[in-house]
């Protein structure tokens, strides 16, 4: 059996396997229920058809087996909920790694690409203000002071991260709601204008992965594809260097 769930793409993040395990469990439960009921169903349709059973019974089923089945379903659901779903969510979505020990990126969605903003060598993000917004500076980074060495991706929608290191992304949007979805990382988070939502994950596989936009955002929604590069630490530093400089893509 594959470690990732039926048909899903490879798992490239730390928490991905746990998530797919839950998927296996839930679908297992569903399958058992469905097959059980279906077998019963077909049997009953056959057994109690009119030509075979011309006189119906007024009372029907007398035992309370079904109650036990129902209680059973409820119990299993409770176990999956308390044992798996809630802790998994807490871990994958809420419990953040230390910012100091992670790569922190500001990712901003807009129609129809992603802007990635790295703090640069000083490890600090420059201030942002609408008054600095310009064609080559769509998120309005103040290039004086802390923002001097900040790095912004030069190739549209291309984001790089190092492998085996916690990544924290602060997600925002300039215009409408987008959704930042990394299938192989099992990460999805809506990018909502006016909000700044943090998300985190740890890539465990190197390579190139897709960034999908998973929220209808206008005419270009279906082609708002991005590229996530998971690089060796040295390559990552190199990538930052090549992307340093004032101008971003466009």
């Amino acid at each position, binding site marked *: 059996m594959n470690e990732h*769930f039926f*048909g*899903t793409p*490879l798992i490239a993040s730390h928490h991905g396997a746990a*998530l797919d395990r*839950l998927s296996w469990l839930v679908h297992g439960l569903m399958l058992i*229920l*469905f097959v059980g*009921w279906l077998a019963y*169903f077909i049997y*009953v*349709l056959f057994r*109690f*058809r*009119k030509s075979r*059973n*011309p006189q*119906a*019974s*007024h009372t*029907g*089923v007398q035992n309370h087996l*079904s109650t036990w089945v*129902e209680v059973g379903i*409820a119990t299993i*659901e409770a176990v999956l*909920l308390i044992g*798996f*779903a*809630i802790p998994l969510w*807490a871990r*994958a*979505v*809420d419990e953040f790694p230390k910012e100091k020990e992670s790569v922190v990126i500001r990712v901003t969605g*807009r*129609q129809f690409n992603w802007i990635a903003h790295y703090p640069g060598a000083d490890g600090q993000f420059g201030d942002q203000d*609408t008054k600095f*917004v310009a064609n080559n500076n*769509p998120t309005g980074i103040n290039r004086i002071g802390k923002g001097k060495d900040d790095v912004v991706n030069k190739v549209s929608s291309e984001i790089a991260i190092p492998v085996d290191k916690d990544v924290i992304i602060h997600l925002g949007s300039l*215009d*409408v*709601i987008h*959704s930042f*979805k990394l299938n*192989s990382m099992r*990460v*999805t988070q809506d990018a*909502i*204008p*006016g*909000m700044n*939502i943090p998300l985190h994950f740890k890539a465990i596989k190197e390579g190139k*992965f*897709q960034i999908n936009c998973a929220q*209808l955002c*206008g*005419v*270009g929604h*279906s082609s708002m*594809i991005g590229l996530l590069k998971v690089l060796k630490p040295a390559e990552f530093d190199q990538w930052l260097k090549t992307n340093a400089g004032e101008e971003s893509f466009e």
Partner: protein
Amino acid sequence: MQAPSHTAEHAHGHDAHHEPGFLTKYIFSSDHKVIGIQYGVTSLIFLFFGFALMMLMRWQLANPNTAIPVFGKMLEALLGDVAKDGIMSPDLYNSFGAMHGTIMVFLAIVPLAFGAFGNFVVPLQIGAPDMAFPRINMVSYQAYFLGGVVMFISFFIPGGAAKSGWTSYSPLATVADLAHRVNGQTLWLLGMVLLITSSLLGAVNFITTIIQLRAKGMSWMRLPFFVWAQFVTGFLLLLAFPPLEAAGIMQLMDNLFQTSFFLPAGLSVSGNPLPVSGGGSPLLWQHLFWFLGHPEVYVLILPGMGIVCEIIACNTRKPIWGYKALVNSVLAIGFISFIVWAHHMYLTGMGTKISTFFQTTTMIISIPSVIILTALFLSLWGGSIRFNTPMLFALAFLPMFGIGGLTGLPLGFNATDIYLHDTYYVIAHFHYVVAPGTIFALFAGVYYWFPKATGRHMNEFWGKTHFVLSLIFMNLIFMPMFMQGLAGMQRRMADGGATYSMAYAKENNTGTQDGLSPKIIKMNKTVSHAAWALGVVQIPFIINFFWSMKRGRKVTSDNPWEATTLEWQTPTPPPHGNFTTTPEVFRGPYDYSVPGHKKDFTPQNQKV
């Protein structure tokens, strides 16, 4: 308010020689049966229209950016540049997608399930002469019709129909068409206000009717389950719709008067700052929408369950198993459905506490559904099952709803929803519930009550053909979507996922490792073929429907299915005022095969 009187008309509306003219009889009738049929025909037409939009979209999904044969040219002639050279532009795809959802939910299924069947059947089943407020009933239909007209017109105005999904999330809904001040979204909102008004009037009417007009002896626990389902549905509409109306009004203000209820400050659309004051919240819209949205999905399913329940009881010739449990479950669903809405919003940035709350309630609400399905399944045991067309559709409802319902569970667990959210898995989940689920239940209802409404049967052979082929193609459409969803195919993709495919990665040298495989992309074609085939196999139904009205086999008795509920104890078709003598009820709704009785059914109004 019901200031103008309906009573004046009623005071002398029953004189035998007072025959109403054509207009008052068929167009401006206040008779619940006529209104029911008006609702039925209108909503069936919308159902077909909504399906037609999807059949066109399925071309685009199967063959992205190629001209649609035959219809492409027509689209271009009708709609202009959005269908240039017969190719569906992404804009048009988005419009059609949003309108497919809207039309199916608000103009087809709800009016058919609640408006049509509710209107026609409920007063008959509870032994009432009509709805409590016949005039309001008429206005309710008219508001619905008007809402439909507004929605329909919106396709043809500059800029085209609404294109922000049936969910109309702000800010997209506000900024999607800035070029036109009155645009598709504006008409969508106006249409929605009309539809909501219609639903509210309908709900008030239904609930009042069920509370007040039950015949003598028709106690709450003797109501047919269908009536219970409609009763709860009424409450869902009554209390869940107003928040959407409020949200609609606010979005209308945003669109027309540049307010910013749902817009934060500092937005810039394609590089230009949006001149609004800001201070609003996009999430507020989502909360208000889904506060309606989730109860709404139970509005889509409960009447269907009610219909299925009636038909199963009648065609197994035995009482429904666990009537009390059914009633309690449907009430529980009604209550809990108001506190699960945010499971549609897990990924908008929710903390552990709140998402735990909502996924817990979501799991809890699945239990009454399981109970209902179990009860229906167990009802089959010991029956003498007659496989006529209504019964076939009703039976198929069970496993189809089962699949749809069960796949709701992985969506309901917030952790698994991280991956599944907004993929075709969601599309498959809810279509299993509403298409082979509710639509089948509604087909069953049409075949079942057709003889009561028209005095003629529909053709059995063509009915069964319709059933078998619909069942096959429905599954061929929606089963592959689960696989596509699991493979990571996003919904609302105007190119059917082509940009996310491996082919794309290769062409553009991005070399990503998680593109959609050719197998998954090819499924689009399979699904589309199945969808068009499903369209074709509706032809027997449409012909059967109209042909049988005039030519179908005449019923030989008022109770052709030998059922127990009151609607079958009236003349066929029932006259104005429904019952010739005031009915009195002596027993529960499903007294089939009572030991010691001469016949295998004992109508509710039969004393012994």
